[in-house]
């Protein structure tokens, strides 16, 4: 009983310190959560940076029980990536989308956050034609747009200068992997040249 009273008195006597510790804990917690995307050494961007060149579609290795470039990928999909760096050039993605197989596209900023996603059903007239660019590049492109018609391409404004696009192609049956792979092979990623200048 005595020790309990002592403990209580110790706690009351040190309450400013306890409150201080809790405030520090809160600040540290919030700061570390917010900082993690900027500090994490092995985020998706870092992993893909080593696995694929810029402005080129690269099929990623099939995940195995020992390692996976990205965890939790569906083993029934063939996964490819296009990395971009808008400091150098906008990214152009083109390809036919026949609609006979499932193709998924997701666009990620430098910190992995998805800023746009679509399936092959979202294509314009059976074709994929996407331009990923920044605000300056968008204004430059729009300056050359004809006034009386809508652009024939999907223009996506990237929130960061660097980022990546993940393309997933589903192989619904174990034997249909080659077809899933071939569908990705029809998609092209390239640095957009200054063809309008």
């Amino acid at each position, binding site marked *: 009983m005595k020790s309990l009273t002592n403990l209580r008195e110790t706690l009351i006597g040190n309450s400013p310190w306890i409150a201080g510790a809790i405030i520090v804990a809160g600040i540290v917690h919030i700061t570390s959560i*917010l900082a993690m995307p900027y500090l994490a050494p092995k985020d998706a961007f870092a992993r893909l940076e080593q696995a694929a060149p810029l402005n080129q579609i690269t099929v990623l290795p099939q995940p195995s029980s020992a390692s996976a470039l990205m965890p939790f990928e569906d083993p029934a999909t063939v996964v490819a990536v296009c990395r971009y760096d808008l400091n150098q050039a906008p990214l152009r993605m083109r390809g036919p989308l026949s609609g006979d197989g499932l193709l998924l596209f*997701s666009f990620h900023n430098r910190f992995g956050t998805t800023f746009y996603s679509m399936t092959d059903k*979202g294509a314009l007239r059976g074709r994929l034609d996407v331009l990923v660019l920044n605000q300056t590049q968008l204004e430059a492109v729009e300056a050359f747009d004809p006034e009386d018609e809508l652009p024939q391409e999907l223009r996506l404004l990237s929130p960061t200068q660097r980022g990546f696009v993940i393309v997933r192609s589903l192989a619904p049956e174990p034997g249909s992997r080659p077809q899933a792979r071939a569908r990705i092979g029809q998609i092209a990623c390239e640095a957009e040249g200054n063809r309008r200048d």
Partner: protein
Amino acid sequence: MATFLKSLLAAAIGVALGLTATWLAVERGYGFGAVSSGPWTGWPKTGSDGADPYARAVLARTGEVPLGLAEGLSFTARTDEAGAKLDPTCDYIVTGPIPPARYWTLTALTPRGLVIDNGAGRTGITSAEIVRAMDGSFAITLSRQARAGNWLPLGNTSDFVLLLRLYDTPLSSASSSIGTTPMPTLRKERCA
């Protein structure tokens, strides 16, 4: 001097507590916005601009790239229908209904998201390979031993999680309705 030591101690305890809270937060789930139905839990917002800071922190740490909101939805089960942790020495039966989707896949992975080796070389089952009964219903058996019908092998692992992915599903655009959509049941059968 005592004051200095006390403030140092308080700061150290605060830092330790804060980092522990961060570690716990990123080890469990993907922040807020979880939708659950039975044993299935999904975090649809992680694949969008609306991902909260906790989800962003978890993704940055693990390096995974979640399905975008328009691509589909992914649900994880760590327990069976009754709430017991999934045990690879047991058999499980998954029965419909599965929400509408262009394709779906059911995959067994390690809790860290790696493929599980098994003798049959099958890591998942998809809507295209499923064998249905006359009335359109189906059952998938999860087991280490070969089973007739729709069999998803569980390899040599101490732990596994199930992932149900709904590709190109109309559910994506109405995440509020997920909680009320019927999801497949996950029942434990006998254990070895």
